[in-house]
């Protein structure tokens, strides 16, 4: 039976930020967030995969082309002593985000790692007025797709769905089961 409209639009936050759940969400709300989680997970996982299987890939030139006040940081990351580690960590983090989000396990950790990565990408080539936005296909003012995806990951962090659709359900079996609301 359908709930009243106000129940669809609001939910009660239980406890602290850390043990936030989507238990009180309508199943459609959860499905929508789950869908977003899967899409972002897919995106990260594929980015990780093409890099894992391409031994020549390196973030060096992306880092060296960084602009804005963060340029020294990225130039340092691209230095010969660091770049191998930076490349490895980038692929590892992309894979962690992709796998946790797609599988629905530790996805809150994955979401935080993803936010960190996306903010790094954002600040390497921020959508600031005057900065050249090489490699982007649209028009952006302050906000670009990296920032939007980071915001989406923040929603995923706040609204975990792995217990309803994902491996985490096996850790808390009651959650996996079909909910009636």
């Amino acid at each position, binding site marked *: 039976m359908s709930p009243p409209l106000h129940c669809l639009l609001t939910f009660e936050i239980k406890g602290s930020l850390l043990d936030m759940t989507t238990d009180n969400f309508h199943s459609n709300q959860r499905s929508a967030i789950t869908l977003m989680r899967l899409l972002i*997970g897919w995106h990260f*996982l594929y980015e990780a*995969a*093409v890099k894992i299987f391409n031994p020549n890939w390196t973030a060096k030139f992306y880092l060296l082309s960084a602009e804005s006040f963060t340029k020294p940081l990225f130039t340092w990351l691209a230095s010969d002593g660091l770049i191998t580690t930076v490349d490895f960590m980038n692929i590892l983090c992309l894979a962690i985000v*992709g796998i946790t989000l797609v599988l629905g396990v530790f996805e809150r950790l994955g979401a935080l790692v993803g936010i960190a990565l996306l903010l790094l990408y954002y600040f390497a080539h921020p959508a600031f007025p005057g900065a050249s936005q090489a490699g982007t296909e649209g028009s952006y003012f302050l906000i670009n797709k990296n920032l939007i995806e980071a915001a989406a990951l923040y929603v995923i962090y706040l609204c975990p769905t792995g217990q309803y659709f994902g491996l985490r359900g096996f850790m808390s*079996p009651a959650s*996996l089961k079909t909910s009636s609301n």
Partner: protein
Amino acid sequence: MDDQNKSGKWSRRDMMKGLAGVPVVGAVLWAGAAKAAKQKESRENILNTLNINASAPPDSGPMSGDPIRLGIIGFGIRGPQLCRALGFATKDWLKSMKDAADKNPNDTRLSSFLEQENLNIQITAVCDLFDVRAQEAADSFSNDKVKVKIYKHHQELLDSKDVDAVVIATADHWHAPIAIAALAAGKHVYLEKPMTHGITETYALQEAVKKYGKVFQVGHQHRQTQSFVTARDVIEKKILGHISLVTANTNRNSDNGAWQYDIHEKANPNTVDWKQFLGNAPDIPFNAEHFFRWRKWWSYGSGLSGDLMVHDYDRINCVLKMGIPKTVVSSGGIYTHRDGRTVPDVMQINMEFPDFTTGSSREAGKEIGMTLVYSATLGNQYNRTTVLMGHDASMELGSDLVLYADSNSTRFKDMLEAGTVDANVPLYRYDPSANAVDGITSATSKYFADKGLLYTYRNGRRVDSTHLHMREWLSGIRNGTPVSCGIQEGFEEVMTAHMGGLSYKLGRRIEFDHAKNEIVPVDGHDLDQVLVAEMDNFV
């Protein structure tokens, strides 16, 4: 189903919801692997087909043994640069580079200089017509072991027993006379480009090199640039097919780029040997602007054709080995710097090679002949790359090298149809600087660096190509190894430049007679005179 859930058992639906992500992970990883494998296969296919050997020129021989004692003749702008390539920098330069590096950690000019190989030479003598500069060289390069001696006249320097070899970086009109005198005095010679200022003296210099048997190198340092060696391999493997057109360009838009150099405050008739500077040039009273900005007048310099076109011509000649053109037609004018100069600042030089071919992928006899177009302005800095245009592919050539297949190529027809080659995507890219971060500072430096004239790379490290070019000359002296820009290359370079200058001045086509090895005479004109005379005499 709900009943089963309430009893704590797993329904099929629950299991599916829990495990749904697992096949997705597998699918995405598979897709990523497949994409990478396809890219790798396509790349390897292309590379195997092209079989380009991206290699550096062979290292010149060892620098061991007794130090070679050098005399520097001409210490204006290029002279100090050549000395740095040899490992000797003035005190002022070292200080300014240290300040620059302190301000900007990416400025690697000082560290690159300090990391240069020691070439085991001594600078023992210097001659410059401006006392201040000669003194600066002597003060900076003298040390506990060697005191640099200043000579007022180049002949005194050449007569010195303390000099084994000389580096000549004077104004153009002194190149050949000093080089010939140096060879006659038994000195090895490193001579800046253009090799000569006139036609007759070019043959005299050629004779002197043959007669005295000393090691002679013309200062076209880009012959050391790694990408040009790779470009040569591309040509030899006939990847471009028949090249019908080559375009090379100069675009500079600064005072420095237009030879509007600083005039030293201490320059006056007492500190400058004006009479000696004039040499065979028209006798005029002391003129500081003519002395410091000599490139602006035909009497001492060679204009765009001799000053900058020679770089581009020789870059192409070291890749294609096409030699002197059959005909040359030039045009241009003084359109951006009407400051009293007589050499043009906008110039186009069309060089025809009707019998030249780089090989053809089509039926025999269909393709033959090539034009090299040099196009220059000193009033604009838009970056036009050097492009070699063949029937099968085009090659952009500079410090890096990029190949594009032609969409109507015969050689790549099958690959284009199969979609494994895309005419809009580089077929091949060779960037020897891929591992290096550069700190190029001025517009003129960037102009030269983009052309591969300033730096090249060895094992991922940036190296001054002039350093390698001078090393090659020193190795020729020490070990008898060959030089890459000797008298024949210099002859081809400078005769082409002279044809360009003559065509501009006479407003007509200039021909070269390959059988007689000379520029075809033009009725009523002494071509030597035409070449060095100021334009007022003609228009």
